[in-house]
């Protein structure tokens, strides 16, 4: 197997050969000259020039013809032997001339190739043997002074000559090996030096890296501290802003309950609107800051996606009705009912997108669609579309949409309000939920915001209204009248899933035309707001011909007309229609046909209780309010008094604890931050004591998730964020009262 020779050793060998060649030039010239000198002794001129010249011709001829081969070096070995023979001949067998064999042998060492000794050795031995034989055989060598050759002498001569050639060959070999070793060691030394240098460099780099790392670590810790400080600042700011806001909004709500002139009513509206706007701004800034500082964590839990969507629809139902815009939603059947994700944050995104869509849509519709994009075992990727028929966004401004504090243009802010943070927050929340958001828009035709989220299919089994069969009502015909195509197609798809047979009409006129030819409908569903002929007029005309057919009106929030015509409709549903409600109502109307209209309204579920003293009679409670802020104290007292309660007031936690020792309160509305003893400490104290255990609800401006966890962790039962919404408070009070009554009734007599 050929061994790869390193370049450095190759170069060394080339240099050795070149140097040796130059040396040999001198030696050969000297040899030739010696031949001429020897010719003087016995007049051997022909031999001197002839043999010497031919020997030189052999060497230089081969070297010229095969310059890249080392063959000329082997020829040189033979040439040196020829010169030796020449000199012996010229000096008539002079014994000393044999030394030229050994001189030649030592000269050849210069090439550091032991093999070069071979041609010379062979020549010398053959020469010696041949002439000895010739001399002994009686032929008689003319030019020799020795009479005969003895075999013993020949053997001794041959052995000694061989030994010399062997030693010279060995020396050549050793010299080459030694030099190669030396080169190898030099290279290794250079490599080690380089390596050492690199190691040193690497060590220096490592040290520099370590220093950089330490600096980075310091910077990180400083950033973490700054972040922590920012979080504390945010919490404090949130609290400090919400506390006075609570006063402003609460008082405005109470003021609105009093008798006011029309002008004062306007002022109150402005205060309420401004307060709401301010609160939205604060919430947005708080959210954005939390996301940017990395403090936003998702609160993942199992929830009903449809309820989440419907809650969003509820939020905007009133506004959509006021604007005359159809708010429609559709959840595709493949979408899992329950998913595990952050319900609150998904709702926040949807509220933002739907809110924006409504803000920029004067007519037409806002359509929310949920679809299943991808499934991987339990993992699902859901797609949400929020499509509107609003003013649209110019293409060149689409890329600015998701940047913080950036709206389409400054005039948008002036005209439509908003911080410009909503979409930025949404985009970041979607990113947190493992999705992306994009937008397509055309000026004048509307926009479509699409986003995706990743979630896990929920485990809680909920009712699947989408796949319910209306037992015994399969195949029944339903006429649907709506001017909105989207709404019509959604209702059609839903009814078909329930095995009903829907017929669609885009207007009252078309519906009547259908009814003229076919009165075989078991149910008619009609929209309220339609051009030319609204739901009321259509119902009147239908009732004239079909007094017993069940009629369901799809109305809008705040539309009072429904209550004026109870005889026309069997049921009124508020748009956007919730699937469960629609299912119940349709099932109810188809079950006992025919029947006279009997008014059912889902509005009952949504109507806020008015502030009346009867509330306390219905939901009796002994209430203690622990609140250090005088304005808030006053506000709480006013609301609770208006609800018929006589709350006691404590200015701090310690006072609340003392008052609880004197009187058994059913409920303590506890502020978190108070002097002397804060709400958390007071709660812990109460929970640890063996005394009466009231329901404690936190009432605080600290809106962060961590605060809620702190409250519940300290032993509080619930949490109400400031500014307090009267509806939320009422709901909580009712819940506590009902809970207490239930608990009392279950106690053994």
């Amino acid at each position: 197997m050929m061994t790869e020779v390193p370049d450095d050793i190759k170069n060394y060998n080339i240099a050795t050969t070149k140097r040796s060649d130059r040396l040999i030039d001198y030696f050969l010239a000297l040899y030739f000259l010696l031949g001429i000198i020897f010719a003087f002794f016995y007049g051997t001129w022909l031999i001197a020039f002839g043999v010497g010249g031919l020997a030189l011709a052999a060497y230089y001829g081969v070297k010229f013809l095969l310059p890249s081969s080392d063959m000329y070096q082997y020829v040189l070995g033979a040439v040196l032997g020829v010169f030796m023979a020449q000199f012996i001949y010229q000096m008539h067998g002079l014994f000393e001339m044999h030394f030229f064999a050994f001189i030649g042998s030592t000269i050849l060492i210069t090439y550091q190739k032991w093999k070069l000794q071979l041609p010379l050795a062979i020549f010398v031995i053959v020469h010696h043997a041949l002439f000895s034989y010739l001399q002994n055989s009686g032929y008689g060598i003319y030019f020799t002074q020795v009479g005969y050759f003895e075999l013993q002498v020949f053997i001794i001569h041959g052995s000694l000559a061989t030994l010399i050639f062997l030693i010279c060959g060995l020396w050549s070999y050793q010299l080459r090996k030694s030099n190669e070793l030396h080169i190898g060691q030099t290279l290794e030394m250079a490599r080690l030096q380089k390596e050492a240098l690199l190691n040193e460099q690497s060590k220096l780099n490592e040290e520099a890296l370590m220093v950089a790392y330490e600096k980075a670590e310091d910077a990180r810790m400083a950033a973490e501290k700054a972040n922590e400080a920012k979080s504390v600042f945010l919490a404090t700011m949130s609290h400090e802003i919400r506390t006075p806001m609570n006063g402003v909004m609460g008082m405005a709500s109470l003021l609105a309950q009093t008798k006011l002139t029309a002008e004062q009513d306007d002022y109150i509206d402005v205060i309420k609107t401004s307060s709401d706007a301010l609160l939205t701004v604060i919430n947005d800034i708080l959210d954005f800051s939390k996301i940017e500082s990395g403090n936003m964590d998702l609160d993942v839990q199992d929830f009903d996606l449809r309820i989440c969507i419907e809650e969003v629809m509820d939020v905007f139902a009133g506004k959509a009705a006021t604007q005359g815009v159809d708010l429609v939603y559709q959840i595709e059947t493949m979408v899992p009912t329950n998913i595990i994700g952050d319900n609150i944050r998904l709702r926040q995104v949807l509220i933002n997108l739907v809110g924006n869509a409504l803000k920029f849509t004067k007519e037409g519709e806002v359509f929310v669609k949920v679809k299943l994009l991808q499934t991987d075992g339990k993992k699902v990727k859901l797609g949400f579309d929020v499509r509107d028929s609003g003013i649209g966004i110019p293409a060149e401004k689409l890329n600015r949409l998701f940047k913080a504090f950036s709206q389409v243009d400054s005039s948008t802010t002036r005209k439509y309000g908003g911080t410009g943070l909503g979409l930025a927050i949404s985009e970041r929340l979607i990113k947190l939920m493992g999705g992306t958001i994009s937008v397509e828009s055309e000026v004048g035709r509307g926009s479509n915001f699409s986003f995706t989220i990743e979630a896990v299919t929920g485990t809680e089994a909920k009712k699947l209204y989408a796949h319910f069969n209306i037992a015994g009502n399969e195949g029944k015909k339903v006429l649907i009248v709506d001017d909105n195509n989207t709404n019509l197609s959604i209702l059609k798809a839903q009814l078909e899933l329930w095995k009903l047979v829907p017929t669609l009409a885009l207007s009252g006129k078309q519906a009547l035309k259908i009814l003229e030819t076919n009165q075989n409908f078991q149910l008619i569903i009609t929209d309220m707001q339609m051009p030319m002929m609204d739901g009321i007029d259509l119902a009147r005309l239908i009732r004239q011909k079909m007094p017993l057919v069940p009629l369901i009106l799809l109305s809008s929030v705040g539309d009072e007309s429904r209550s004026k015509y109870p005889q026309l409709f069997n049921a009124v549903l508020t748009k956007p229609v919730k699937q469960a409600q629609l299912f119940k109502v349709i099932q109810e109307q188809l079950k006992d046909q025919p029947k006279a209209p009997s008014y059912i309204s889902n509005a009952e579920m949504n109507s806020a209780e008015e502030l009346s003293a009867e509330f306390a009679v219905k939901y009796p409670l002994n209430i203690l309010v622990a609140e250090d802020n005088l304005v808030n104290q006053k506000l709480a007292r006013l609301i609770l008094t208006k609800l018929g309660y006589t709350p006691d007031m404590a200015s701090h936690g310690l006072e609340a604890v003392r008052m609880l020792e004197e009187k058994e309160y059913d409920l303590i509305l506890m502020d978190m931050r108070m002097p002397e003893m804060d709400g958390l400490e007071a709660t812990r104290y109460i929970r640890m004591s063996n005394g009466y255990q009231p329901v404690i609800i936190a009432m605080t401006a600290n809106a962060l998730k961590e605060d809620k966890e702190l409250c519940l962790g300290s032993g509080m039962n619930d949490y109400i964020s400031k500014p307090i919404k009267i509806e939320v408070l009422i709901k909580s009070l009712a819940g506590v009262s009902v809970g207490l009554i239930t608990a009392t009734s279950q106690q053994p007599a």
Partner: protein
Amino acid sequence: MRKGVVILLITIIASAISLLFWYNDIQYRLPTPVPQGYHPVTTGAMLNLSGKLPFIHNNKPMFLHFFNPSCPCSRFNIQHFKSLVQLYGKEVNFIVVAMAGDKDMTAEKIQDTYGLAIPVVLDSTIAANCGVYSTPQAAIINTDGKLYYHGNYNKTRYCTDKRTNYAQIALEAMLKNSSLPGFDAAAGIAYGCTLPRCSK
């Protein structure tokens, strides 16, 4: 292709060198051509060398050494000749008969050059008187003035073969008053340089 040329070149050169050596060797191995008008002189013939040789009053035989300084062959056996002088110098009168060499050649110069303390005669006609036509050759003349032996010193040029030391054997035989032993043909065939100038 080039390798073929190289092999051819080496073969030609090696052959040429061998030829040169052979040619040189064979040249000296061939007998010296007999000159035209040569008159052979047989042993036992009375020689008339009056006036050509120095007169020595000791009644000893004479040993003539025909020598040419410019002839390589004459130099080959000079050592052998000197050894004979040393051995038999007391019993025999040794005389060097120098053939035509350089113009400025003198008897003293030859004596100095070769360390010979014997007479040197620069007369090339003596060779013809003795029947000698090449160098180196020996001629032994007994006390009667008769040619006892003329021919080669030895079969080899350096007189390395003691069995063929013809001149020495003849000298000893003469000193013992014995008849000339029968030598082989090599004793009488001249191999050296031609006279008067060496052409080898």
